[in-house]
């Protein structure tokens, strides 16, 4: 049984279909990268998975159990197992880095404050920001904010981590530090689904690459086959377009 099993998942706003029957699976420890042109539904897929955008059809199963996205208790349970990091970090602007990390564990997991703070400090150290615990988001660089955001997602001890274009809003010089953080994370065996335009990184880190276009999965497979011998013409044209520059 796959850890994450997505079947015929659809979503849209109004009459607009954004996800048009997406199916894919991820095993425990998989690092699945979603690639494809803008508007292909990659980010929407992650938003549907974490329950920010309601699905209009299809099912998501975690360890074989279907998630009911219309039920708030089910959503709460889901968000104990799955966490997301956004392109724009979305750190709470009114809190220090450490408070950003402890709020949810204390309020939703019932962890004692002292314990949450100890774990928060550990996580900040892990992302190389041990000295920034008392800093507010506005005092941190984009790369630092994104690393705090990753630590915040990890503070929930998720089994599945979703990363939505986490380096796209960063200064080019800051991209490396965030990618390094994700590399370290990959070695811990956590399951990840990531949307990225950093093709070199995707190729290096992924166990599986999923090419999407127009709300559908064009093809999926190990990085070597998607990058070197894509079966679909759409994947080939996408590869050529991004390699040309």
């Amino acid at each position, binding site marked *: 049984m796959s850890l994450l099993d997505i079947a015929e998942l659809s979503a849209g706003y109004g009459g607009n279909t954004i996800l048009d029957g997406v199916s894919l699976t991820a095993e425990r420890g998989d690092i699945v990268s979603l690639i494809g042109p803008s508007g292909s539904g990659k980010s929407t897929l992650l938003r549907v998975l974490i329950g920010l955008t309601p699905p209009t059809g299809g099912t998501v199963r975690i360890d074989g159990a279907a998630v009911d996205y219309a039920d708030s208790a089910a959503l709460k349970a889901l968000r104990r197992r799955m966490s997301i990091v*956004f392109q724009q970090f979305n750190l709470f602007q009114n809190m220090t880095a450490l408070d950003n990390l402890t709020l949810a564990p204390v309020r939703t997991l019932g962890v004692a404050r002292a314990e949450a703070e100890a774990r928060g400090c550990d996580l900040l150290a892990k992302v190389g920001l041990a000295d920034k615990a008392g800093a507010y988001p506005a005092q941190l660089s984009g790369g630092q904010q994104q690393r705090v955001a990753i630590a915040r997602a990890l503070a929930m001890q998720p089994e599945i981590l979703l990363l939505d274009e986490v380096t796209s809003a960063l200064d080019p010089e800051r991209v490396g530090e965030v990618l390094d953080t994700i590399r370290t994370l990959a070695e811990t065996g956590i399951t990840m689904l990531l949307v990225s335009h950093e093709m070199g990184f995707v190729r290096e880190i992924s166990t599986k690459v999923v090419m999407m276009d127009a709300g559908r999965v064009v093809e999926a497979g190990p990085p070597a086959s998607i990058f070197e011998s894509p079966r679909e013409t759409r994947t080939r044209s996408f590869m050529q377009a991004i390699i040309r520059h």
Partner: protein
Amino acid sequence: MNGAAEFFTTDTAAFLAGALGRTLWMTLLGCTLGFLLGGVLALVRRTRQPLLAPARLLAGLYVETFRRLPFLVILILVLFSVQAVAPGLSLLGIATIAVTLAATAYLAEIIRAGLDAVPRPQVEGAEVLGLSALDRLRFVVLPQAWGVILPPAAAFMVMFVKDTALASHLGVVELAFAGKILVNKGFSPTLGFGAVLVLYALVSWPLGRAAAHLEKKLVAPRHR
């Protein structure tokens, strides 16, 4: 005509103090209740819960109606409706209800604008961490909204100190009415209304200061 010697007596002082008390009572109680009720209306208008759709509609209707009615009209409406159901209620009580009704509508809009000013991604960040709606409001939205809510809310209240003068039409002896009574008693308008002017200024100023202090205390230190 009575002169300055007759004006500066404990009698006049007590009379003015009573009037000032009624002005402050109407403003502070009316605006505090209005802030709480306005907060409830703002929250109701923001929910997306389908079951609350009728409440949302009513809240919207209330806010839009009462913001369009002149305060004097609200006063008279409350006067006649209250006298029909509870004839024993004092004029001050009636005026306070009218202030509450008006303040609720205005403050509901001010609070709603403040809550809406918190960027949506902040709320989503809290949502995906599993925080309840109440926790999201308490820890993430409100701390960031205070800075937008408090200045106009305080300005509204300071402005309303003066608008309560309209309650004199009902016969509530508040500050403005007190000035008129003093002049009718034979004191010069300069003295009677001069004293009233000084008192209005004296209460507005600390109210403004208190609001500024509250703002400093509550507003998130995001740009320290």
